[in-house]
C-alpha cells in the first residue's frame, strides 16, 4: 500500500506542482493518476521513488515513511517504466532486463535465467534477447521496459505514460497484455496517463488531478463516469461518458435471436433475406453478404466486414456497438471461444440498459470508501 499524506511539492520559484495530496494506492491494485498537463501527475509519481523530494507531507510504503529509507535501496525495490521505455541503448535486451538484479548483486546465472523468463512473460521471442534496443519496434521496446521493471520482482511498479508513444493498435495490445500480466502478478501499481480512456480501461481506481496538483476526485472508473463531482471532472471524463460507462456494466442475459448462416464457400442462391451472416467451418462469424447481389459460392472478398462482434460475457457497450455497426442492424454475439451464439438488436440492448441501475454510491468500489468527497479517504 502506498499512502500520500498531505503531500505538497513547491518549486523554488513558488510554483506549486502538487498541492496537499492525500490518497491511498491499495496493495495489488492499479491506481491511475490522470489529468491535463501541469496537473502534477508525473511529479506525484516521481515523489514515490524520491526522484523528486516532496516539500511537505509524507509518502509511506506499507506504513514505512519513504523519506527515511535509503534512496537507492528504495528505488531498487520499485519497478519503473517510462514513456520511451528509457532502455539502455548500449546493452542488449537481456542485459537491459537484468539491470536491477545486477545492481542487487545477484549471481550471473540467476540473472540470465530470470531475464529470459521475463522476456517470455511479456510476450517477446527468445531470439530478441541478444538484440540491441534500436533493433526493436516501439512496442517491443516498451515490453522490454516492463520486463526490466519486473526483473527483481518488486511489489510496487510506477508507470509514467508507458504506452503513449506507440500507435493506437499497438497501444491496445500492450494494455491488454499488461492487464493480463497484472492479473497474474497482482503488483501495487501507480500509473500516470493523460488519456482518460486508458485510465478507465486500466484503473481499479482513478484519481483525477487538476492543474496545480489538486486532487479533484478519486474513485473506481464506473463511479467516476456516473458521478463526476464537478464540471472539471465531468469535462475531463468526456462527452460520451454515458456511452463509455456501459463498458462497466456486465451484460445481463441478452435476448438472442438465432441467425440464418451460410458457411463461406457455399452458395446463397435462393435466400430471400436482405442480409445473411457468413461463418467459417467452426461456426465463427466472418461477415455479412447481400444474397440479392451475389450468385454462386460466397468468397471471402464478398464479405461486408463493417460490423463489430461482441462476446456474450462482455459489456453492454460491446453488445450495443455490435448492433449499431452491423449492416443488417443485427449485432453479432459470440461465446468466449468465438462461436456464433446469436444476434441482438439495438433496441433490445437499450431496454436492458434502461432496466439496469446506474452505478451509484452503493456500487462504488470497496477501496474508494470515504472517497466520495473526492479529497480524502481513510486507510483500511
Amino acid at each position, binding site marked *: 500500500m502506498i499512502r500520500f499524506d498531505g503531500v505538497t511539492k513547491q518549486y523554488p520559484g513558488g510554483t506549486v506542482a502538487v498541492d496537499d495530496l492525500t490518497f491511498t494506492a491499495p496493495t495489488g491494485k492499479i491506481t491511475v493518476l490522470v489529468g491535463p498537463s501541469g496537473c502534477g501527475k508525473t511529479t506525484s509519481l516521481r515523489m514515490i521513488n524520491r526522484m523528486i523530494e516532496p516539500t511537505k507531507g509524507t509518502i509511506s510504503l506499507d506504513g514505512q515513511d519513504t523519506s527515511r529509507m535509503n534512496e537507492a535501496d528504495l528505488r531498487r525495490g520499485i519497478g519503473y517504466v517510462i514513456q520511451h521505455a528509457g532502455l539502455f*541503448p548500449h546493452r542488449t535486451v537481456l542485459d537491459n532486463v537484468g539491470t536491477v538484479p545486477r545492481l542487487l548483486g545477484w549471481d550471473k546465472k540467476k540473472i540470465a535465467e530470470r531475464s529470459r523468463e521475463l522476456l517470455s512473460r511479456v510476450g517477446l521471442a527468445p531470439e530478441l534477447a541478444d538484440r540491441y534496443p534500436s533493433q526493436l519496434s516501439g512496442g517491443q521496446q516498451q515490453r522490454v521496459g516492463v520486463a526490466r521493471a519486473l526483473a527483481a520482482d518488486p511489489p510496487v511498479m510506477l508507470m509514467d505514460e508507458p504506452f503513449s508513444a506507440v500507435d493506437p493498435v499497438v497501444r491496445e495490445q500492450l494494455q491488454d497484455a499488461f492487464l493480463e500480466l497484472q492479473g497474474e502478478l497482482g503488483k501495487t501499481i501507480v500509473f500516470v496517463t493523460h488519456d482518460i480512456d486508458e485510465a478507465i480501461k486500466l484503473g481499479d481506481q482513478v484519481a483525477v488531478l487538476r492543474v496545480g496538483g489538486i486532487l479533484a476526485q478519486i474513485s473506481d472508473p464506473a463511479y467516476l463516469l456516473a458521478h463526476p463531482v464537478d464540471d472539471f471532472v465531468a469535462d475531463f471524463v468526456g462527452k460520451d461518458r454515458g456511452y463509455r460507462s456501459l463498458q462497466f456494466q456486465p451484460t445481463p442475459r441478452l435476448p438472442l435471436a438465432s441467425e440464418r448462416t451460410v458457411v463461406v464457400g457455399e452458395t446463397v442462391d435462393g435466400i430471400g433475406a436482405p442480409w445473411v451472416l457468413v461463418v467459417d467451418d467452426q461456426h465463427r462469424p466472418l461477415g455479412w453478404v447481400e444474397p440479392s447481389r451475389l450468385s454462386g459460392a460466397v468468397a471471402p472478398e464478398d464479405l461486408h466486414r463493417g460490423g463489430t462482434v461482441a462476446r456474450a460475457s462482455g459489456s453492454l457497450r460491446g453488445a450495443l456497438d455490435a448492433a449499431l455497426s452491423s449492416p443488417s442492424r443485427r449485432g453479432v454475439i459470440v461465446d468466449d471461444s468465438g462461436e456464433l451464439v446469436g444476434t441482438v438488436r439495438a433496441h433490445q440492448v437499450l431496454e436492458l440498459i434502461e432496466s439496469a441501475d446506474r452505478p451509484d454510491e452503493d456500487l462504488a468500489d470497496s477501496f474508494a470508501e470515504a472517497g466520495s468527497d473526492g479529497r480524502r479517504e481513510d486507510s483500511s
Partner: protein
Amino acid sequence: MTWVNDHWGDIFTLARSHVWLAGIPLVLGLLIALPLGWAARRWSRLYPVLISASGLLYTIPSLALFVLMPIILGTKVLDPVNVVVAMTVYTVALLVRTVADGLSSVPDHVLQAARAMGYRGFRRFFGVELPLAVPVIAAGLRVAAVSNVSIVSVASLIGVAQLGNLLTDGYDRFITAEIVAGIVACVVLALVFDGLILLGQRLLTPWLRVRGAAGARS
C-alpha cells in the same frame, strides 16, 4: 630517395619517440579531462568557466609552453617530460569540452531510467553515461591526436628529438628529401593514431553497428 634509404634507422627512432611524446599526453589528457568534463556537466555554472579556461590554454603558443615548463616544473631543459606535460595541457584543453558535450549527449530518458533503477555515483558514470558518450569523446580524441602529432614536432626547437628533427635538420642543411620524409612520416603517424582510435571506438560501441539500428529508435 637515397637519403631516405640511408636513414631508415634514424627515421624509425625518431618516429618511436614521436609516438611516445604525442601518445602518452593523449592518454593522460583524457584521464584528466574525464573528471573535469564530468564536473562541467554536473555543475552548470562551472561549464562556461572550464570551457573558457581550457580554450585559453590552447591559445598559448607551443614553443612558449615548452620553454616555460622547466621553470614551472623544475625539470632540466632537455627533459622530454617538459614536452609530455605541455602536450597533456593541450590535450586537456581540447578534451574537457568534448567530454562535457559527450556526457550531455546521453538521452535524458536514459539517465532518468538509470536513476530510477537505483544506479548511483561511479556505477552510473561508468556503466551508463561514459559508454554512451564514447562516440562524441572518440571524435574529440581523434582531433586531439592529430593536433598532438603536429604540435610535438615543434619540440625539436628545444632539443627534444622526434620527427620534427627531420624538418629542422633538412631545413638547416637544404636536404629536401629529409623535409619531405618528415612531413610524410608525420602524416602517416597521424593516420595511424586516427585509425587506432576509430578501431577502439568500434570495439567499444557494438550497439551502433547493428543491422537496422538507424531510425528504428522512437
